């Protein structure tokens, strides 16, 4: 029996994954447990493993395709076997150079309406299957009218006709149109969750935050290289890169950033850290500067809950959970593992967790839970030699702290005599929709004082 390989579901809310790489091709031998493909959610990449030993066959999607979870992506076959064809679903290619990105987005959505999303129950007649393939239509989004909801030839023809009739037009409910008009959202950039991809009110509400970004990002691939310039390489905007692009653009466009800076003398904190590391028990982790800052930030957030918040159109939500993300550079991008409830953890725990998360990040072993739920982010470019910088808020959070390199500087003491001191520049980027300068300043001052008197908050 041909064994189905399905697109796995890694997280509770995950609906689709993108195929980043096929590690095996049709005809390759695999053993049970061998990685077959690398797929990505919007945050991390994961490997899909062979469910049993055999030969890979019937690969249905190509790199860059976004596939709903639970859909069959390939088969493991035994010698002499062929991959089943009858319920095959033509891929929805996520073409890089398409003129209609919105339509392509739609094609990649899970089927809705009368068509069951689960591949096991999706049924299509052979002739309809062939016609759909010829017309390059994702048959899974067609509502079948045949027996037990089977998609018939006429269904495919009708669907194709409806596509051409609606070419360039948007399929959206009146309510969705009204909200989109009120909020200035471009419906062309959205994909709908209703029947045949119809955009519904909820789609506009959930997507409006990212709508402008989606349109902009989706439009980028359609712009080719500048004529006359030699191309070194083209980096497809997929997976993590696209997520970063969307989130950062959305943040910069929607959240009015204000920036506040302080230089903090770290001599006391550094002294404490060195002392702790010298006296640590054998297998305890070393305490890093980042850990100190995480601890101090957690304390300061607790004093200033307005910073630990989220902006929505209807309200500002303050969180009691203090979950601090620490931006971590990777070769090909950036990832933000989260220390949950950092305010209730001690320095050792935070250091241990930071080390563990960093290692997982580098070896691509982070789990979705390691990356979700952040309420504030710290970005430290000090190790890259940067003195000071401003960071972009990581949505949906309200603020981010940029940490620079620790520099030795002379500062005047109480008698105005120069004293050598180690200082670090902290820059807070805060969402002015949520808070005002005085509130951000209060937080930054509390943070500074906590680092100056670290011993106090560690008690």
């Amino acid at each position, binding site marked *: 029996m041909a064994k189905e390989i399905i697109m796995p579901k890694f997280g509770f809310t995950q609906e689709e994954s993108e195929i980043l790489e096929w590690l095996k091709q049709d005809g390759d031998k695999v053993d049970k447990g061998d990685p077959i493909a690398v797929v990505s959610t919007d945050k991390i990449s994961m490997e899909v493993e062979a469910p049993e030993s055999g030969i890979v066959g019937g690969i249905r999607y190509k790199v860059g395709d976004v596939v709903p979870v639970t859909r069959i992506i390939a088969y493991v076959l035994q010698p002499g076997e062929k991959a089943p064809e009858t319920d095959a679903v033509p891929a929805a290619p996520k073409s890089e150079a398409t003129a209609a990105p919105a339509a392509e987005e739609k094609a990649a959505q899970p089927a809705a*309406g009368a068509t069951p999303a689960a591949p096991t129950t999706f049924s299509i007649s052979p002739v309809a299957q062939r016609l759909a393939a010829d017309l390059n239509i994702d048959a899974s989004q067609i509502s079948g009218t045949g027996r037990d909801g089977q998609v018939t030839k006429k269904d495919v023809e009708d669907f194709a006709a409806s596509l051409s009739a609606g070419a360039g037009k948007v399929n959206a409910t*009146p*309510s*969705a149109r009204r909200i989109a008009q009120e909020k200035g959202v471009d419906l062309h950039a959205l994909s709908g*969750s*209703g029947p045949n991809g119809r955009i519904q009110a909820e789609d506009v509400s959930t997507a409006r935050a990212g709508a402008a970004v989606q349109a902009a990002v989706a439009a980028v691939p359609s712009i080719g290289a500048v004529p006359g310039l030699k191309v070194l390489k083209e980096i497809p905007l997929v997976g993590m890169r696209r997520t970063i692009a969307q989130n950062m653009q959305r943040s910069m466009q929607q959240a009015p950033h204000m920036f506040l800076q302080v230089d903090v003398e770290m001599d006391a904190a550094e002294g404490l850290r060195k002392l702790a590391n010298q006296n640590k028990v054998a297998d305890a982790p070393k305490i890093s500067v980042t850990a100190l800052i995480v601890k101090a930030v957690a304390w300061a957030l607790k004093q200033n809950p307005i910073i630990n918040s989220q902006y929505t159109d209807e309200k500002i939500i303050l969180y009691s959970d203090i979950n601090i993300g620490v931006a971590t550079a990777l070769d090909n991008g950036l990832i933000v593992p989260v220390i949950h409830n950092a305010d209730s953890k001690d320095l050792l725990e935070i250091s241990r967790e930071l080390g563990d998360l960093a290692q997982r990040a580098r070896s691509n072993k982070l789990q979705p839970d390691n990356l979700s739920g952040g309420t504030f982010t710290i970005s430290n470019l000090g190790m890259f030699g940067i003195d000071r910088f401003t960071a972009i808020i990581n949505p949906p959070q309200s603020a981010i702290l940029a940490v620079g390199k620790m520099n030795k500087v002379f500062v005047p003491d109480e008698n105005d005599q120069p004293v050598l001191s180690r200082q670090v520049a902290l820059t807070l980027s805060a969402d002015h929709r949520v808070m005002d300068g005085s509130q951000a300043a209060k937080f930054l001052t509390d943070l500074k004082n906590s680092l100056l008197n670290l011993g106090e908050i560690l008690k």
Partner: protein
Amino acid sequence: MRELSYMEALREAMRQAMQKDDRVFLIGEDVGVYGGAFGVSAGLLDEFGPKRIIDTPISEAGIAGACIGAAVTGMRPIGEMQFSDFVVIAMEQLVMQGAKMRFMFGGKAEVPFVMRLAGGSGTGAAAQHSESLENWFVHVPGLKVVMPSSPYDAKGLLLAAIEDNNPIMFFENKVLYKTKGPVPEEMYTIPIGQSHVVREGKDLTVVATSVMVSRAQEAAEQLSQEGIELEIIDPRTLKPLDEKPIVESVIKTGKALIVHEAVKTGGFGGELAAVIMESEAFGYLDAPVKRLAGLDMPIPYNRNLEYHAVPQVENIVEETRKLVKGQY
């Protein structure tokens, strides 16, 4: 409050109206000695005598003509079509004469009669005794069309209809006759042209008429377990239609399902859907307005087929789920 059946509520309305006003009388086939085909007028002959409870020959045109004639001369007749299907025989009188007299006489003639009609399927009475023809009359200017869904509404609306100075088609439902509900003993009226929000909910507006109101309520109970809250509106009067509560409800929920027993094509649901879409609610619709109605076929005699020819509770549940989940 004491409970009465829908049938008893109608009987009490007629009795109280006749006690109060000598001009009120009942005329129809078997309304006297037999007490009405479904027993609605049982006992009224003994109380009011043959001059006010009048058995007629089998002539619906005659019943309608007598009502209209009596009404224009100052009486307040109640006619009965023992099956609403038979109203076809009386169409000339009702549509050509009764509905138009006030208009054609420049407002000098009033035609205050109530025609009671027993409609609907579910009794195994086959194609010629089970139809729901109310929308034919909605289409006729000059007639009002009333359709009570509960004993309380039946009494209050019938008393209001008898007091009204215009011809009223009063569609009762055979399956509802024996259903019970609270009914005040005193005389009361429910204004003609006032919709009733039967149940409040946030997820979907169900506009249902007659027997479909209670089916929608039953469906709403089931759906409530799943976290889906239906808002149910009973127009009670199809004409004149009180649009406001319906429009407001759809603005709130964004979705509307219309449920009636009459066949879908050319039924009242089409009118209601248009009313919603022409209104302010259009911009709030998050799904097409859907109709759940009788199949486009005569009502079958076979009880199983009859059951499936008109909307049942399970159909309302299923249709609602699809609409709410955006899988219509």
